[in-house]
Every structure is written in C-alpha cells, then in structure tokens.
C-alpha cells in the first residue's frame, strides 16, 4: 500500500490555502472557458499556460502551476455539460452525446435534474479514473522504466496508429493531418546535428513552430469562425438549481448504478487511448440505450441518457492523463497541452517523473481528487451565473475572445510573429474542420514530433539502421504489431465485412 502513503504525502503538498485558492480559480476559469464558444479545454489551457511561467520558477511552484492548469481542464469538462443541456450547443466534442437527452430534459423544465445528474456523473466518472491513476500509474511507470528508445518509439507509433484506426472519417486525411504535424515539428534547428531544417532562410522559423500557437489558432480562432458562420444566437432554457432539485435527483441516481459502472469502465479504457473521450461518450450512450429497460425512450429526455455519456467523457478525459504522466504520451489535445507545460517548466514526463519528482506527481494526483470535489460544489452552486455568461451578446463576447487569443499567442514567446502565425493556423483550422481533417492528431504530432524522432534515431543508431529492432523482443514486437494492426484496421475491418457479408462492402454511415 505504498500508493496510499504517497497519496497522503500528495495531499500534504496539495492542501495549502494557496493551492486551494488556485483550484477554485482554475475551476471557475475552466467552466467559463468550457461555456464560451471558441474556447475549450485545449486552447484555454494553452492561453493560460504562459501565466504560470513565473509561478513555476518558485520552489514548489510547478505543483501549484499544474494544479491551476489541471483544474481549468476539469472545469472545462464540467462546463461542456452546461451548454449542451441548456443551449443544445455542445461546448466540446465529447458533450455532443449529452445533448441527446439533456436538451429535451431542459425543454421539459427539468434542466435542474439534467444538470445535477450530468455534474454528479462527471464527478463519479472522474473519481473512478483518478482511482485508476492512483493505483495503476505507479505500476505503469515502474514497468516503463525498462523502456529503451525502440520501446518508446513503438509506444509513439501505437499512439498515432490508434488515431488512424479509430478515426471515423477518411484514414488518409488523418494520416495527412498527422504528418503535417510531424513536418511542422521538424521545422527549425535539428537537435542532433544543429542543421537548419525547412526554414528556407527565414530567421523567424529558426525556433520552429510552437504547438501552443497552433492549438490557440486551430481550436480557438477556427472554432470562432465556424460559430460566426452559423450566425449563432443563443436561446437557452432557464437554469435554476435549488437544493431540493439536487437532492431529489441524487435520490434518483443510484438506480442507474449499472450504467455508471459500465460508463466508467468504457471511459477509463478509451481514455488511455488517444482521442478516446468523444468515442467513449458515444459508445457509452449507445451501450446504455441498448442495455437499459428504458432504451427505446432514450432521446426524449431520460436522466440515464445524461448519466451515460457524461460519466464516460469525464472518466476518459481524466484517464487521458495516465499515459501522459507515465509514458509522456498524452491521450487528448488538452493532455498534450499539459504535457507541453511540464516540458516548459523543465520537467520530463515519463517513468522517471515518478522517481525524481514524486512530490509533483502525487501532489497532482491528490489535487485531482480535491479539484473534482471543488468542481462539483462550484458548478452545482453557480450554474445560473455561468449560464448568464452565455446570454452576453455575441458582438461583445466574440471580440473579447479574439483579443484573449491574440494575447495568449503573444505571451508564449513574447513574439508578434506568433500572433500572425496564430491567424494562419486559425484559417487552417476553419478549412480543416469543414473538410473533416482531424485536428487532434495534428496537435499531438506537433507536440511529440521531436521526441518521436529522437527515439527513432536512437533506435536506428543502436541497430545500425535495421528496422527489425522494433521486433527485437516480445515487448517492443508486441506493441509494434498492435500498432500496425490498428493502422490497417480500417482496411482489415472492411475486408472482414466483405468476407462475412458475402462480398458486399459495408455501407459507411458518416
């Protein structure tokens, strides 16, 4: 029970007045970010990351900084549910499934019940995932200590192949977007030889593309442009949450324990795989619909239909931090931004983090428990306040968000060139979204590009250019095989369907 001791130590780190204040501030900021159009977990954290630079330089400051940023993430996860239920606008892709039953509930005047069940199930999902992290992360980290460059490269390969295998759209668009991320990551000075790559004589490109700029542009500006194009007007249901509704809903919720358990498991499993939160929420909604007695009534405003996707999405969003901390492989764009934060603060995510920075890791894990409790209290008590933000007219909120994006892009390196770059990424995000090029693999490739390349080069150096090093032992061979399986999964599943269906290709339902 070494984990329990470490966790108690973590609580001692996290439980200071300063950190509790940061948690509270982070959650409130996070919910606002989750509620506002154009700001989401990933770019919200990216914009606020520079604010932690000076904080992280103080002794023990990195823990406070990660507490602030991770609480923004939890807040954004909670906030997504508010817009989905009250306004039928999913703030985040993984909240889409919440609108199916959440919005009908709100229209029937049961917004309070929908919100309470959404927040409570988010909390339950997150709690299960944090428990998983508490007990699994040290094991995974210990196991990963034995990893050499080939193993790490095969894990990166697995991450990226999982994107291709699990993407709903065209696999070649996923590959193109991902490779674009790798190519952009390669721009600038080569870390090994010191040669300039892909700069074509432009001094501004020397330091390469920062993924934070890309995140702010792609997700922030791109999202705003899409919102504006639709000429969005917010028409929402009234939000009122009094204690009686909350308690009545809480009495109802234990009935759905089976759905909660199932959704938590689905969420945790999918969350460890990159890009898992959105499919997890849909999958868990689908499973609940299939297995529940009230299944046929789903979509007309069932509390259970809110419980299922919210539990899974929050569990997945939280467990996405497990591979980020233990292997240095983020499971979601927001986890990628957090990973970028660790790198900027001078921490090396990966198995050694658990040995060298145990305080930091366990402080973070303890703050996940506390942050979600604080989050649940904040959202239950302040819903009308947050819903009021959405009633601020678009002509006021949009320019303020655009200004925030510009400031966020500037503060990363104090460079105006970055702000222009963000504009370009914004237009790119808009076009990519419209043509269904996925953005998450692009961002992850941009973050992991250098590390993936380093591990590839080191593996190649060790084997003198022989690719069979990726099959040299059971572990690395297994991961590589699994990666290739996932990579060719779109082809394989089609082939299987053809064999089973007697030569008829499956109808794609995109």
């Amino acid at each position, binding site marked *: 029970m070494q984990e329990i001791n470490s966790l108690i130590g973590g609580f001692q780190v996290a439980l200071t007045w300063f950190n509790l204040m940061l948690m509270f501030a982070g959650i409130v900021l996070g919910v606002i970010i989750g509620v506002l159009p154009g700001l989401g977990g990933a770019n919200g954290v990216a914009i606020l990351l520079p604010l932690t630079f000076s904080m992280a330089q103080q002794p023990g400051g990195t823990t406070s900084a990660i507490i602030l940023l991770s609480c923004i993430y939890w807040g954004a996860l909670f906030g997504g549910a508010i817009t989905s239920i009250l306004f039928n606008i999913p703030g985040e892709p993984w909240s889409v499934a919440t609108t199916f039953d959440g919005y009908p509930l709100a229209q029937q005047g049961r917004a309070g019940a929908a919100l309470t069940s959404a927040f409570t199930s988010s909390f339950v999902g997150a709690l299960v995932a944090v428990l998983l992290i508490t007990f699994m992360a040290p094991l995974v980290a210990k196991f990963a200590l034995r990893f050499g460059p080939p193993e790490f490269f095969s894990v990166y390969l697995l991450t990226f192949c999982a994107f291709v295998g699990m993407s709903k759209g065209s696999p070649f668009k996923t590959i193109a977007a991902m490779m674009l991320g790798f190519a952009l990551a390669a721009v600038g000075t080569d870390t090994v030889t010191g040669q300039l790559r892909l700069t*074509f004589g432009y001094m501004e490109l020397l330091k390469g593309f920062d993924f934070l700029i890309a995140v702010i542009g792609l997700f922030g500006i791109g999202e705003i442009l899409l919102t504006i194009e639709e000429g969005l007007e917010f028409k929402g249901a009234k939000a009122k949450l009094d204690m009686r509704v909350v308690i009545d809903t809480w009495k109802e919720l234990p009935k759905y324990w089976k759905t909660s358990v199932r959704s938590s498991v689905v969420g945790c499993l999918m969350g460890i795989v990159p890009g898992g939160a959105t499919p997890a929420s849909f999958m868990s909604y689908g499973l609940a619909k299939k297995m529940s007695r009230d299944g046929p009534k789903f979509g007309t405003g069932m509390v259970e239909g809110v419980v299922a996707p919210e539990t899974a999405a929050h569990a997945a969003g939280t467990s996405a931090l497990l591979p980020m901390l233990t292997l240095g492989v983020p499971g979601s764009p927001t986890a990628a931004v957090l990973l970028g934060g660790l790198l900027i603060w001078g921490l090396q995510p990966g198995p050694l983090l658990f040995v060298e920075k145990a305080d930091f890791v366990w402080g973070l894990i303890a703050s996940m428990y506390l942050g979600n409790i604080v989050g649940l209290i904040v959202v239950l008590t302040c819903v009308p306040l947050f819903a009021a933000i959405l009633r601020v007219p678009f*002509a006021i909120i949009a320019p303020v968000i*655009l200004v925030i994006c510009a400031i966020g892009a500037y503060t990363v390196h104090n460079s105006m060139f970055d702000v222009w770059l963000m504009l370009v990424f914004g237009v790119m995000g808009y076009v990519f979204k419209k*043509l269904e090029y996925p953005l998450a693999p692009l961002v992850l490739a941009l973050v992991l590009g250098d590390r993936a390349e380093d591990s590839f080069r080191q593996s190649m*150096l060790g084997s003198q250019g022989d690719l069979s090093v990726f099959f040299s032992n059971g572990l690395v061979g297994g991961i590589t095989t699994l990666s290739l399986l996932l990579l060719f999964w779109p082809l394989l599943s089609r082939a299987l369907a053809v064999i089973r269906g007697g030569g008829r290709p499956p109808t794609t339902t995109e």
Partner: protein
Amino acid sequence: MDETRQHKAVGSVRLWEIVVAAIFLAFGALVVYDSRRLGASWGSDGPQAGYFPFYIGSIICISAIVNLVTAAGRKGDGAKPFVNREQLKMVLVVMVPYAVYVGLIANPVYPLGIYEASVIFIAAFMRFLGKYSWLKIAVVSIATMVAFFLMFEVWFKVPLPKGPIEALLGFQ
C-alpha cells in the same frame, strides 16, 4: 430570388477538397526536397538530419495523392457548397478587422500596443456588428482592457506590448 443569390456557393466541397489535397502534396514535396538537400540517408555517424523528415514528407505526398484522387472521384455530396456567400462574408467581416488589429498592435509606423489596439477592436466590433451606443461600447471595451492590464502587468507580471498611453502613465 434574393435567397438563391445569398446562398450562392463559393466553390463546392469537392473543389476545396482538391485544392487542400494539392496544397498538402506541394508541402510534402517541399519537405522531401529539403530533406534530400540536408541528406536523407545514413551518414558517417548515423542518420542524417533529413532522415526522419524525408519519410514524413513522403507519407504526406502519398496520402495527399490518395485524398486528391478520392476527392476528384467524389460524387453526390461532393457538389455541396463549401461555404456560401453570406457565410464567407461573416467570416471575412471578422477576419479582416482581426488582421488589421494584429497589425495595429505592433508595426514600424505607429505601434499602438495590445491594450489600445484591443479597445479599438472591441469598440469597432460592438459598433458595427452589435449596434451598441457609444457609452456602452466605451464602458465595455475600456473596462475589459483595464482588467486585462491589471491581470497581466500587475498580478501575473507578464509584460505585453504597450502603447503611448501606458508610456504616459509611466509603465514600460
């Protein structure tokens, strides 16, 4: 009549798919070219600088060609409009002033700094898209930027580009 004109498409989805795939192809070729220039093979001391990007560029080219062929052969929903004129107008109404705003922050002629430029940007946005009264505009835009000023310069000590007014007040 009027409605059909407003909904006139600016290029079909298929056209834009082809354009984007072609840009990907060109970019991939550029990466391959630059990697070849740096050396994409095995040097005396291991893989050369262009070794990894060379493969990345090649994969971009291959997937771009697949996307190009898929898009060119796409029927049915490929003819859907990519964006209609009204939508494009809205996007440009936001993007063009935004670019002007970024230009105002820092330029060689008269840099306004982020705070002054933001006040102007928010004010213009509220005036032309929201039709608010000047009083409301002044309150919202100036209050927002004063709050940001306090947050960045005073609280978190993150310096942003400053303009003439801050210089007058003695902030550098």
